[in-house]
């Protein structure tokens, strides 16, 4: 479709409007970004300073607080392990449903998705009691189990969708070439679905890292994640906004960046494929 000139007035208005909206909505984050590089005094300056000499002192201070690293480590461990564990459990299930035509596959898949649809708060009491009784409160393991199970339906769903994209005939060809099931899975299926695994893993990493409901309720000093740590800054302890910004920035930056790369998976995964 050819246009005479791209720069019609409508185009200009749209561009300006779009940028205005984007900047407005991004503003809080942008402000967070800026404040992280300010001194505390600059952070609470009235009127707010837009131009200042950036400093890294906040990041240093946050780094030196060993408890920040402790919580960050917990976030890393719980997110990564729960994602890997989830993939390990979800992959065989997705494989079975994608390549063996069972009668109940569709029902099983829908049932799995429905477990994700229950609000977390509905399970709060029993999970808390169970965790308490099995001494898993405030442990990494407890959080890992909960994160894995929370994300499992999404992982099965996304792996299943990815597997279905691989033509069955390619796997049949491998069978004819003499491959055992294991060889079929490792030499043909796996290389072809690496992308699916990566994007599923990425999305679940993001979801686990940001998980606040269970982190806040099931963990504190020992196994608390960054979500918990940040929440504990909520009491007004005076002038520490720059440091808070730095800490928050470090907590969210990697995930926001991952998020930029997992937009498509987000749409697929969180709407369970209802929107293409």
């Amino acid at each position, binding site marked *: 479709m050819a246009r005479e000139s791209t720069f019609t007035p409508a185009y200009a208005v749209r561009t300006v409007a779009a940028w205005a909206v984007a900047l407005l909505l991004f503003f809080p984050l942008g402000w967070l970004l800026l404040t992280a590089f300010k001194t505390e005094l600059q952070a609470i300056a009235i009127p707010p300073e837009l131009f200042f000499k950036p400093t890294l002192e906040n990041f240093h201070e946050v780094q030196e607080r060993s408890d920040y690293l402790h919580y960050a480590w917990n976030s890393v461990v719980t997110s990564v392990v729960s994602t890997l564990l989830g993939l390990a459990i979800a992959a065989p299930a997705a494989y079975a449903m994608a390549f063996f035509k069972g009668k109940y596959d569709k029902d099983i898949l829908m049932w799995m998705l429905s477990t994700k649809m229950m609000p977390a708060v509905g399970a709060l009491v029993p999970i808390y009691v169970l965790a308490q009784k099995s001494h898993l409160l405030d442990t990494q393991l407890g959080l890992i189990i909960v994160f894995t199970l929370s994300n499992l339906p999404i992982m099965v769903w996304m792996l299943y969708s990815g597997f279905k994209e691989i*033509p069955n*005939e*390619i796997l*049949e*060809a*491998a*069978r*004819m*070439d*003499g*491959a*055992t099931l294991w*060889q079929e899975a490792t*030499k*043909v299926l796996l*290389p*072809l679905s690496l992308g699916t695994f990566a994007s599923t893993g990425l999305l679940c990493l993001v979801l686990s890292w940001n998980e606040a409901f269970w982190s806040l309720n099931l963990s504190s000093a020992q196994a608390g994640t960054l979500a918990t740590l940040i929440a504990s800054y909520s009491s007004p302890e005076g002038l520490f906004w720059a440091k808070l910004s730095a800490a928050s920035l470090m907590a969210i930056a990697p995930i926001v960046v991952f998020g930029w790369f997992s937009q498509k998976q987000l749409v697929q995964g969180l709407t369970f494929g209802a929107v293409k």
Partner: protein
Amino acid sequence: MAYLELKGIEKFFGEHRAIKGIDLDIQPGEFIVFVGPSGCGKSTLLRLIAGLEHIDGGTLRLEGRDITHQPSSKRDLAMVFQSYALYPHMSVFENMSFALKLAKVDPKVIQDKVQRAADILNLTPYLQRTPKELSGGQRQRVAIGRAIVRAPKVFLFDEPLSNLDAALRGQTRVEIAKLHRDLGATTIYVTHDQVEAMTLADRVVVLRDGVIEQVGTPLELYDHPANQFVAQFIGTPQMNVSPLQQMPALIQQQAPAGAVGGSIGLRPENVVVNPAGRGAIKGKVDLIEALGAETLIYLRTAEGAPLVARQSERTTLTPGEAVTLDIATDHAHWFDNAGRVVGRTAAQATS
């Protein structure tokens, strides 16, 4: 003993009986073609032989060994898929050597075999490319190469030419025929195109609704079809099959007893068109198709039967013109009202 023997093969999809008891003996080195309309079960039958579907009834024997319940990987059969099913993440060389690698064959031997197959198929310049970088025709050759390298007991082809354009199809058909001549391997080839069946096969198996209608050499099927279905399936243009009532009395009188209430089958080349006034059977031209090497004349008899006549000469006839017909009834095929062939003389007995 047959090389590949099918006895009472059955397949159910849920309640539906897709393959209804197939018996077939295939000799070593034969090129067998399964042909039939969509849904007749030819691909299913091929997949049953390959082991990609489970055989629900009957036995399958290869060289005397019962392989009915053996998994595909152990049957020593190679399949060329309709969509080629090449491994997208491997190069052409790796695609072709995959099976041998799985069988832990010496790399030097692999290199040698793949090279030879590549030479036969003109794939040597492409060995390092991935399937993405190849044209449809090249991919097809890689699929064939993959099968050749394994030197299997039987080659299975599942409609390999249907994804190619018309020009390439003809070319590849010839190549496949030459390949068979050079390698002499037992081959089962599935197609819905009866021209491929006629040109490639040693024997043709015509299937309909999960049942074998007839087995025979291409010319046997052409000259002596066992029933109306086979008669009309083989041969282009289709054989003219008209109910006897729509034939002039002259023809009806020559019908054998069993054909009363049935039909007569005439190959287009057995219907000779003459200018009006020359013969007893009258007709009118509907349409002329001048194809260059031959001419097809679509006409209608006075009694209303539509017929197609074929001749190698050009014609000056025009639509609407009156003509007379010569019908060679000793080349006619007579069918009863259920479509079964009815014999009249020894020359017309079924094979």
